[in-house]
């Protein structure tokens, strides 16, 4: 019984971690950026969806769509206002860009977090569930929203796979993540590619944020934790590897769930941190890393 419970809950939370982390790794693969405002963008989406469904009167579906739209816009603003100026700045030495992008996105994340806390308070918000109620799944009472979360996450992952493998845009994105310079030589405008990648990233982070908001609820205080968890998953799976991130998400999701159920909820994240240190020592490129 408890085994089934862990299986179901772990699956939902892992799927959620998965789409959040895929966006994060995609950006790193294509443009070498570790976006430390990741958590803030997810929380933006959730809070926008909450406000959209409630105060703005869009209803649950309209609210969810509004949340995702806000995340896409925020993602593009992050790129245009913070990341791109640093990457194209002539005053910053090439080998220092990485730390500048890290610091810049970190500061931007703090600004978003403070803005959310200012306008909506730091009290947690829960997005109106798209499907209320519970269903019995192999004898385990499961909220319908939890099943929806896993289903949507996997639908998104499937669509992403189709995009990358079956469309021209997708193939260009894939190529960009492997060899950006080669693409420029072929006559592709990197700035257009970056635009698409950041829009796609915003979409993924937005969906993850809204789902998380409906499943567990989020507050502006969770920003740092969400960024750290995406960062950990991505390093575990191998920076830049989409498949690796997905595996990383399931490892983290299940390890946390098993710990919470079988040992104690209060030490939920500790085994994950220890595993992470171990992996980084033994296999620094992560489970499926390329380098």
């Amino acid at each position, binding site marked *: 019984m408890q085994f089934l419970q862990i299986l179901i*809950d772990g699956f939902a939370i892992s799927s959620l971690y998965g789409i959040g982390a895929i966006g994060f790794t995609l950006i790193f693969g294509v443009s070498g950026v570790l976006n430390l405002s990741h958590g803030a963008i997810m929380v933006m989406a959730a809070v926008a969806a909450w406000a959209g469904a409630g105060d703005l009167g869009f209803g649950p579906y309209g609210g969810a769509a509004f949340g995702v739209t806000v995340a896409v816009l925020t993602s593009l603003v992050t790129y245009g206002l913070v990341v791109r100026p640093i990457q194209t700045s002539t005053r910053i030495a090439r080998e220092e860009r990485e730390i500048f992008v890290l610091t810049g996105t970190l500061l931007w994340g703090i600004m978003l977090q403070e803005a959310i806390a200012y306008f909506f*308070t*730091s009290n947690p918000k*829960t997005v109106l569930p798209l499907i209320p109620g519970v269903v019995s799944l192999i004898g385990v009472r499961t909220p319908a929203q939890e099943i929806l979360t896993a289903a949507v996450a996997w639908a998104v992952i499937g669509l992403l796979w189709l995009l990358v493998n079956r469309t021209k845009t997708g193939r260009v994105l894939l190529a960009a993540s492997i060899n950006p310079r080669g693409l420029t030589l072929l006559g592709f405008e990197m700035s257009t590619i970056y635009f698409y990648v950041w829009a796609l990233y915003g979409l993924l982070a937005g969906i993850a944020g809204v789902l998380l908001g409906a499943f567990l*609820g989020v507050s502006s205080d969770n920003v740092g*934790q969400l960024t750290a968890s995406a960062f950990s998953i991505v390093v575990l799976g191998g920076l830049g590897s989409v498949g690796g991130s997905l595996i990383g998400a399931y490892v983290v999701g299940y390890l946390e*769930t098993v710990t919470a*159920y079988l040992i104690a909820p*209060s030490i*939920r994240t500790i085994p994950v941190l220890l595993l992470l240190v171990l992996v980084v020592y033994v296999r620094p490129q992560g489970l499926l890393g390329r380098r």
Partner: protein
Amino acid sequence: MKLSPVRALLAAAFGLGVTAPAFAADPIKIAVIAEASSISGAAIPNAAKLAADEINAAGGVNGRMIQIVDYDDHNSAADAVRAFQRAKNEDHAVAVIASYVSEVVLALEPWSGRLQLPMITPGAASDDISHRVHADYDHLKYTFHGYLASTFLSDSVCDGLKTIAIEQMHAKTAVVMSEDAAWTIPLDAEYLKCVPKVGLQVLDHIRLSPDTTDFTPVFNKIEALKPDLIVTGISHVGVQPTVQWHDQQVPIPMVGVASQATSSTFYKDTNGAAEGVIYQTVSAPDVAVTPKTIPFTKAYEKRFGITPAYCGYTTYDEVYYIADAIKRAGSTDADKLVAALEKTSWDGTIGKVEFYGRDSDFTHAIKVSPEYIGGLLVQWQSGKQVTVWPTNVANAKMTFPAFIKLPAK
């Protein structure tokens, strides 16, 4: 006073004024230190300003106006210490009303002694606040505990459980669930004593990390024990466990201390999942605990659009009895003010406020008993906070959402 060049330079550089001697007509400054971005925290400056405006409209204190100086501590002990120093040295506040978080208040307590600046907390609960005053009175006598100490909060919940859990719900067993924080250590210790005493068997005692976001494993574990009741001690968490309790349809009622539930925005923040939750408080919007309660709630709602969180009531009273103590002391001198505060007997919105003396373990904590300050149990019903206990002031009977299964008679 001669203005030294360095001082003038620094004053210019920091854009800060230079201290001037106080005149009789200068306002009396009361500092308020709280976390502005949380609902409980925001109620503190709001209620303080409301009280100050009323006192000033009525002529102030001995002809002097009360001015509230408001600091945001971002829920950080370091920021709070900095604000406290500023309140004393720069803004020359005569008293400080500080925070609803025990950790912050315990960090401020030694500073209140070192800087000899009286401080009252409107919302922190840890017993240690008053125990420390008792242990080192000469140094720490400047600290007052203007809210129920954790032990008294537990006792208040247990009193209520006697009626609503035993007599009305016919409950026999309970699980104590509280967050891991300073204020819940004495709270839980007392729960574990008083809950069995009223006739409920405690099946388990769960302490959860305040960082928890996924409560599924917790509720799962509780449900497996099949208790009739969950007795809560939560403040830093609130919205998430409530929503998950509702979404997962955990069939066990929650009763106890749940600070976030005391604000009227809680219903909206939880999308209505609060329905059926019962929480302990000292004042509620629908009950005239004293003749002052409802007028205050109305005025607060009119000005800020929401009902006050629990520490709004205590803060409002605190501004009044600080003003009263200044009037009685005839001075804003710290030692005279402390002496006057110790003699406080104030009919406020939460009841009659008096402080325990030096002999009590709870030195400078507010007295708790039916003739002073009792407690209420309030339930969220159809988006309204209605009092369900004590029976003589209750406005409604308990009702629960359909997924709750009450014990058979």
